[in-house]
């Protein structure tokens, strides 16, 4: 697999469990050594100069690495010092990270006594306290309530102004709202990579879901003008993919009346990220994968 990211960009890393998202992130952050290949952070080779490269990365693993006995401020100070923030600038960096993550009122609280949402924020604050060029977040919204999820997403969007962000998640709408670009991993391979904008264009409604009481053969449906392919969802339901400029809906209704197919449902289906995802990550469907 190959992965490139520019400053100011949020890359979403998607994939089913065990696809290699976390492994990829561990390699980028130097927690796991790759058996082959190279990793460059801002042009610095991670394997040759691990210390210099790591200073430019902030990492929030799946389980935030928090010392529960420390207060928020003590912990962030430690994280700043560990990431080689000069002593004179530690206080300022900690205050800024706390402000950005909405932790300013919690500075003196013990981390163990904080709620999960705030602990997650401390985790993110820890990852940005040294102003890294690259922020790597592994499933940052897992286990949060919907309000907290929205706040964290806003925060991630804000981070993208100053940093490059890599984000992994299973939550598909999250990727659509937060990321600029998405890569789908499956069994350690990149099976899809494109910008979210392209994906949104792609889902412009070039598919119809229909249900017929007395369906004709698939070939008959396939023969309708403009229909590119027919996918049987069940015995009576079908999905028709069609060309962008010709919509077969009208012809379909006419034919249905003429031949007594018994049309009971006709909905323009959107190709969502979820469909792309499901399509690409089910191994048997891999050959006919959409772009």
């Amino acid at each position, binding site marked *: 697999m190959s992965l490139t990211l520019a400053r100011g960009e949020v890359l979403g890393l998607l994939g089913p469990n065990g696809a290699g998202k976390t*492994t990829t992130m561990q390699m980028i*952050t*130097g*927690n*796991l*050594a790759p*058996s082959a290949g190279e990793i460059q952070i801002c042009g610095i080779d991670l394997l040759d100069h*691990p*210390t*210099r*490269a*790591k*200073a430019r*990365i902030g*990492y929030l*693993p799946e*389980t935030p*690495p*928090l*010392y*529960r*006995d*420390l207060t928020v401020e*003590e912990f962030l100070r*430690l*994280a700043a*010092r*560990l*990431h*080689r923030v000069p002593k004179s600038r530690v206080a300022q960096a900690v205050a800024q990270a706390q402000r950005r993550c909405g932790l300013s009122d919690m500075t003196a609280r013990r981390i163990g006594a904080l709620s999960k949402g705030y602990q997650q924020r401390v985790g993110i604050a*820890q990852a940005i306290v040294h102003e890294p060029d690259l922020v790597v977040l592994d499933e940052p919204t897992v286990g949060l309530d919907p309000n907290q999820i929205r706040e964290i997403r806003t925060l991630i969007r804000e981070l993208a102004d100053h940093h490059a962000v890599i984000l992994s998640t299973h939550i598909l709408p999250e990727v659509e709202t937060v990321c600029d670009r998405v890569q789908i991993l499956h069994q350690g391979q990149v099976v899809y990579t494109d910008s979210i904008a392209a994906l949104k264009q792609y889902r412009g409604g070039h598919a119809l879901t229909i249900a017929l009481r007395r369906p004709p053969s698939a070939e008959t449906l396939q023969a309708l003008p403009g229909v590119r392919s027919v996918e049987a969802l069940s015995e009576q339901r079908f999905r028709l993919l069609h060309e962008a400029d010709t919509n077969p809906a009208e012809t379909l209704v006419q034919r249905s009346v003429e031949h007594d197919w018994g049309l009971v449902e006709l909905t323009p289906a959107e190709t969502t990220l979820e469909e792309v995802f499901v399509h690409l990550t089910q191994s048997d469907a891999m050959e006919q994968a959409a772009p």
Partner: protein
Amino acid sequence: MIFTIAGKELRALFNAPLAWVVLAVLQVILAWIFLVSLDRYIGLQPQLVQYPNPPGVTEFIVAPLFGSGAVVLLMLVPLLSMRLIAEERRNQTLTLLISAPVSMTEIVLGKFLGLVLFLFAVVALMGVMALSLLAGGKLDFGLLAANVIGLTLLGGAFAAIGLYISALTANPVIAAVATLASLLVLWIVNMGAPDPGSPLHLISLMKHYESFAKGVIDTGDLAYYVLLIALFLLLAARRLDRDRLAS
């Protein structure tokens, strides 16, 4: 960077009640031993005066005190060292250190230094206890210094072994038990070797401490402890590095 990590370890110790309880309990036990030997010395003093070259107060009270301290450290260090890496691994906080621009060697040295500074506090408290004898007599400062150096080195060797074993597992309790067992074995390994030339004496933690207790700073013993510490710290760093390579 090493000092940042050492400071973090010390803060973790003193934030939890464990360190305070340990210091308090140790102080009570050692003070009891100290008082008992002081009492014995006072009881024996009239007889001792009859000898041409009687053992002094330092030899009679301080050396046994530090000897008991060595046994107490043997039991104490596994309790303190078990957390160092095993607990971080279990809580998955080790990622913070590994993702930071810090080398494995710095992590290991920092953690080792943190624990040794704490152990030195224990030894220093014993030193202060010994100094209180100045109120009633004279002390042999050379012997006291040899004891302090010896016990600190011994504590360091315990800590290095404990740190390495803690790096082997993600379960602090296993680390503690394994450390205690290893230390005990290294402590008594020469018991079954009556022959003074036996190689078992070479690796015994106790044998090398004996000369310090007598006030002799032998470079051979010094080298033994330094090499032992270096060896186990190196092993610990390599073990941490292997986590990164294994997949």
